[in-house]
């Protein structure tokens, strides 16, 4: 079931088309990656999903019903990229305030906060002020305030920036936990290695348009370039053949690009027939990073080309 469906969403500002006809679905309980270069329209898209902006046209369905930013706000937890907390407020009061604005009663909010503070080792922070916290510490606090009211849709914009590996892992584990318990997570970032590790499904937006949509494995299959790595005992002097070309020589390993129509088995037979000892043979899929750069760079050049004409 889809917790969120976006249909032909548009939001134009005076100077640019921030979101130009984007549609996608987010499945319940998954971790969804929203990717795109700077200025692609991610924040605008997120602001429409969180009810901060109204779309110019198109519709957002939340749990199958038309999304209403104010009534549905307590189902949503949003952690913006630019973290924001009241600097002069104590941490306990701050968390309590934000939780109560999401509709929790004072008692419920207090229990929830205590529970999460213990979990994240923040019990002693209650009476400290936000301005006394380091960047990483306030990040943890921001994360806790985002999920306190047990939202069914959690939107995290660059949640790991500024965190040390220990705390980043803490939050990463919590993200997996939340997803396992049925929350849906939309995760926006530029860090592709995190996306590969965490997300099930991704979309890529650029210049206000969706340019990629699919599960990670599908996307990788779609963008694979028939490159295989083959581990050999001794490097052959010459590999003259029409069935593949050598992309790269490494010690004891060669990267091959298969010609169209060639099957992996043909490559293996070639090596066997030439009495070359094969230690390993596997397909090399492109990293998301490569795909991202390729897609975004392509549109850049296309745009420049258009402008020149």
């Amino acid at each position, binding site marked *: 079931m889809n917790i969120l469906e976006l249909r032909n969403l548009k939001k134009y500002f005076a100077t640019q088309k921030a979101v130009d006809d984007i549609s996608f679905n987010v499945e319940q309980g998954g971790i969804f990656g929203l990717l795109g270069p700077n200025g692609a329209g991610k924040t605008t898209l997120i602001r429409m999903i969180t009810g901060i902006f109204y779309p110019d046209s198109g519709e957002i369905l939340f749990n199958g019903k038309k999304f209403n930013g104010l009534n549905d706000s307590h189902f949503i937890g949003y952690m913006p990229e630019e973290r924001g907390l009241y600097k002069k407020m104590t941490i306990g009061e701050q968390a309590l305030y*934000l939780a109560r604005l999401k509709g929790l009663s004072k008692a419920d909010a207090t229990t929830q906060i205590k529970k999460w503070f213990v979990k994240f080792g923040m019990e002693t922070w209650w009476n400290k002020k936000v301005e006394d916290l380091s960047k990483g510490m306030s990040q943890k606090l921001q994360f806790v305030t985002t999920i306190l009211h047990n939202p069914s849709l959690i939107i995290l914009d660059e949640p790991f920036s500024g965190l040390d590996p220990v705390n980043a892992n803490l939050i990463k584990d919590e993200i997996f936990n939340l997803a396992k318990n049925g929350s849906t997570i939309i995760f926006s970032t530029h860090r592709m290695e995190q996306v590969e590790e965490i997300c099930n499904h991704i979309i890529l937006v650029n210049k206000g348009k969706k340019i990629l949509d699919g599960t990670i494995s599908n996307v990788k299959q779609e963008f694979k370039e028939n490159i295989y790595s083959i581990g050999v005992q001794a490097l052959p002097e010459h590999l003259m053949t029409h069935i593949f070309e050598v992309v790269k020589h490494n010690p004891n390993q060669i990267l091959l690009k298969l010609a169209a129509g060639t099957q992996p088995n043909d490559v293996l037979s070639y090596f066997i027939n030439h009495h070359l000892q094969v230690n390993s043979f596997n397909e090399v899929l492109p990293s998301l990073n490569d795909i991202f750069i390729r897609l975004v760079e392509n549109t850049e050049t296309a745009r420049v080309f258009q402008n020149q004409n």
Partner: protein
Amino acid sequence: MNKIGLIVSREYFSRVKKRSFLITTLLVPIIIIGFYAAIVAITLSGSSSEKEKIAIIDNAHLFDGKMPESSSDIHFQEVKNETEQSFTEKYKGQGYSGFIFIPPFNIDSVPHLSLHSGASISISTMMGVENTLNKAIENKRMKALGIDPEKFASISSDIDLGNIIDTKEGSKKGNAGVAYGVSFACGILIYMMMIIYGTQVMRGVTEEKTSRIAEVMVSSVKPFELMMGKILGIGAVGLTQFAIWIILLFGLQLLLPLFSPDLMHQIQTASAGSGDASSMATKVTQGFSSLPLAKIAISFLFYFLGGYLTYASLFAAIGSVVSDDQQEAQQMVFPIMMPIILGFVIMTKAVNDPNSSLAVFGSLFPLTSPIVMMGRITYDVPLWQWITSIGLLILCFIFLVWLTGRIYRTGILMYGKKPSWKEMIKWAFR
């Protein structure tokens, strides 16, 4: 509790709980009272500055050799056998700060006289010298007409006109001075409060914007609720401050005589000087009791709230479009400060002439009415003016809150470049 209530209570308690709130609440009246006490003390102690020594070359025998008595700051000395030219070179060396050369003249046509001095002479000295000369000439003229100046002095009158204000509840002795003072004080207080609390609203909004908390907040509440919550919360802080001051004022009035009964007595006798201080004190008390205090209090509350809400919403809109840059904020605030200052200027006129057309205009125009109407509060304001003024203020407040709410909604999430006025107007009416 609904969301706007939560926001109001956060804004309220985060300010009231601060130590600085208590300090300013207690310190401000002490500073104001101390300031006035210092002024009174200086005035009572008389001027300690040196007397100006003025020489008079009396060739017209205006004073007949009898120099006028020295006043508090001028001492006159007759100089003989000098001309204007010869003395001009000498008077400074002889310790005079100035001199007047009076040539012989016919008493009916006084020539133009000049006061020579080394530097610019103060207005009070000029007036003192002028009065002295006028008196001397008047005496001469009276004698010429055969009037005895002493007899004339005995018939001159200096009555003390009282004021009785007749209302339905009966007649009370009034005091124009007290009425003037109360009007002026109310006007100034509203003026100050609007600026102080308005800027607090602006700073709060800018803080929310620059600390990026605004984005988290507006994903939970409507921007309008966030704005109104802040405005109402800070307004409640202002009312609390008033309440504390009023309680303190009454408390002091009750407690002061208890602590030292002879202190009041001392004040009365010390300031007596010429003996009319006690009558002055009774006049002031009479003046206060003649004022419609309940009406003043209610109108003060209404105009404080109306004026505050009107301007606070404007300040909030400005706060939402500026970044952390103080200079930028000041530039944007200037157009808002203009009507407040204009109101203050009209108010100073209105307390002197409460029914002039300028005062009436100022007390109806909603951007100046909170200040100006308080300046007219102790005078009789026609009912239609009250109704128009209150109605216009409420309409203006509703319109501005609607308008600024729309600017605020867009501005609070805009980072980077400061929008132009044109863009802001576009946001407001889009």
